[in-house]
């Protein structure tokens, strides 16, 4: 019998599978989506020709229902394929702060993680090494026990000439932006060559994608990857053990996979959905592992508060696909419990490109050339990423009206902000205006939203089985052989992009399973 069946081949599933495979365990790694070559020449050519390089969405497979305005863009970023959303992610890899793991104890709101930052920290170090994160320590940054595996990317002209002086004038500091993009050749992959197309794809493979670990896992000979293998249900062998995963392949043939253990790594929406779809008798009547009633509940993302400006000098943007700085200064829990933290990201990837100016100008020839030359290159943005609280009514549930191509209820996603998030957004706007005003912009305006690629908290970890779905290793409280990997485990959101923590937790779960299965 296969040792472990991993459901979902994104970064979480890939790292769990790789950890298991390198320890000699047999793994079947399933993904509902196809296997794509993330750096294929044809895909790159499509990017250059202004065409979509990815098959983003399959309406029959990816259908969902949004019961709130913020949830309407669920499919705008997530990619269901081998490698998952990392195939097109922007590779930002900051850590959460230690206090994010003790929010209840320290501030009387939200909840605590069942593990401390100190317990996770060695896995953060490993995750940075596995993904190849380039960065440097800085005051205010989360504490670390080892240096980054790669040196930081040099600061951009926009950072050196504009953002550093503006932050300094506002009494704030900037640090390097930790990126899972090679700043030198690493792990058999190229250094960044400045294609500046990180989103949607990196032609040089300098940017980490989960395909790195998919290929490494396969190279052990212990992993079988099955693309376009959609798991519809998990079926119990006994009250406390999952026995098999029922699935459908690309040709529509039904099958099942038995294993000693199962790892659910299908993302914050689909992890919850599969558990709910797999409801069984007794304690699992409201969903597998859902005696707490929390499967699907406490969905979180991150808020985005943007301040944009048109400056008086050209900033030299669009020559790199990511920002090279961030500021930890306001990621300090100083405004808890009333407002959240903000992690500030300056960006010179703003404003219309020459093609966008040309498209909107309504002219041609020399006149258009003049307009493009005069209009291009003056825009910047300061993005404040903020926490969200784990509200029970923000959730993933099963639709009672819509079904997918196989006849299963689609997920219903509800995501709304509360006073805490609105105050966090306001904090981000205030500091953004304050910083950018030092650049004497010609124009200044704001926008806001949520990170539609981050789906957190729908199968949260915790020590109390009555108040959490999983324990500190991601094992479902009510099931001895079902583990969960990914951001659905997060009891709190923090104010940092989740991927690095997803990776750290996946390595930890994989290491545990390799010893215990």
């Amino acid at each position: 019998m296969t040792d472990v069946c991993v459901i979902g081949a994104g970064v979480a599933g890939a790292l769990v599978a790789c950890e298991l495979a390198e320890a000699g365990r047999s793994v079947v790694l399933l993904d509902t989506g196809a296997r794509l070559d993330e750096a294929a020449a044809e895909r790159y050519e499509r990017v250059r020709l202004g065409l979509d390089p990815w098959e983003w969405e399959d309406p029959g497979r990816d259908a969902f229902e949004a019961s709130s305005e913020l949830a309407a863009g669920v499919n705008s970023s997530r990619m269901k394929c081998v490698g998952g959303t990392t195939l097109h992610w922007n590779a930002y890899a900051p850590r959460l702060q230690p206090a994010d793991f003790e929010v209840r104890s320290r501030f009387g709101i939200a909840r605590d993680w069942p593990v401390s930052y100190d317990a996770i920290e060695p896995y953060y170090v490993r995750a940075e090494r596995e993904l190849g994160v380039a960065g440097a320590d800085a005051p205010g940054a989360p504490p670390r026990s080892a240096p980054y595996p790669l040196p930081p990317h040099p600061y951009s002209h926009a950072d050196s000439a504009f953002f550093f002086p503006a932050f300094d004038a506002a009494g704030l500091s900037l640090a390097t932006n930790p990126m899972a993009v090679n700043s030198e050749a690493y792990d058999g992959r190229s250094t960044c060559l400045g294609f500046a197309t990180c989103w949607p794809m990196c032609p040089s493979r300098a940017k980490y994608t989960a395909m790195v670990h998919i290929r490494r896992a396969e190279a052990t000979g212990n992993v079988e990857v099955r693309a376009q293998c959609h798991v519809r249900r998990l079926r119990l062998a006994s009250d406390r053990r999952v026995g098999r995963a029922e699935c459908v392949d690309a040709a529509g043939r039904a099958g099942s996979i038995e294993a000693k253990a199962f790892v659910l790594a299908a993302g914050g929406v689909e992890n919850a959905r599969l558990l709910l779809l797999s409801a069984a008798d007794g304690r699992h009547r409201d969903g597998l592992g859902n005696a707490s009633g929390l499967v699907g509940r406490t969905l979180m993302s991150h808020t985005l508060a943007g301040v944009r400006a048109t400056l008086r000098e050209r900033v030299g943007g669009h020559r790199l696909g990511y920002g090279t700085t961030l500021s930890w200064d306001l990621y300090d829990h100083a405004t808890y419990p009333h407002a959240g933290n903000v992690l500030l990201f300056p960006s010179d990837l703003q404003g219309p490109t020459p093609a966008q100016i040309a498209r909107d100008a309504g002219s041609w020839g020399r006149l258009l050339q003049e307009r493009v030359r005069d209009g291009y290159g003056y825009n910047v943005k300061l993005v404040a990423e903020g926490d969200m609280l784990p509200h029970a009514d923000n959730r993933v549930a099963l639709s009672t009206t819509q079904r997918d191509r196989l006849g299963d209820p689609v997920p219903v996603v509800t995501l709304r902000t509360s006073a805490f998030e609105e105050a966090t957004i306001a904090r981000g706007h205030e500091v953004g205006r304050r910083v950018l005003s030092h650049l004497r912009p010609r124009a200044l305006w704001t926008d806001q939203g949520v990170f539609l690629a981050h789906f957190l908290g729908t199968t949260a970890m915790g020590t109390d089985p009555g108040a959490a779905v999983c324990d500190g290793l991601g094992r479902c409280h009510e099931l001895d052989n079902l583990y969960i990997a990914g951001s659905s485990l997060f009891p709190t959101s923090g104010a940092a992009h989740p991927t690095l923590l997803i990776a750290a937790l996946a390595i930890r779960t994989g290491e545990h399973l390799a010893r215990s299965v």
Partner: protein
Amino acid sequence: MTRRAFLAVATGIAGAVAAVYALARGRIGRNEAPPDAAGNTAVDGLTDNELRALTALALVLFPPTTRVPGTHVERTAEWWVRGRVARMTPPPPYRAGLALLAEEAVALQPGSAFRELSAADRERVVAKLMAAHPETAFHTTAADLIEGLYASLPGWRLVGYDAGPGMPNLPLAYTTSPDTP
């Protein structure tokens, strides 16, 4: 890495990409039908004459500059239209747009193809077609070409860069002022 070494690596990669692309195109449906009665060959659905007309149009929409010679504009335009026709369903209405262009060229100078007109007459033809209402297939063709030219090297070189998104750049180009000579 030195600048020379970087350029060697980047050129090698670009060359490899181009070579792979050329090979791939040979296997993914390059439409090379036998020549027609007028001796035109159709490549990716466009005849030689149509491609030449499109590149001539491109030179009017994006006149050569000191940083962007006419040959760059022509090569970019040809690459763009071939690539779009090969991949888009339906492709942009180049043929219909060119028919309108040809009609105006003949009206201005009987018997002349657009590319045979003087530079000034080509501008007159394009200006007349662009001013027409409602919008026609020519507007769509012109807008598509403009997008391709400004999204590619000609557009980025116009604003002072040596490369743009989608092209390998010098390792530290982004750290320098955009106005560095």
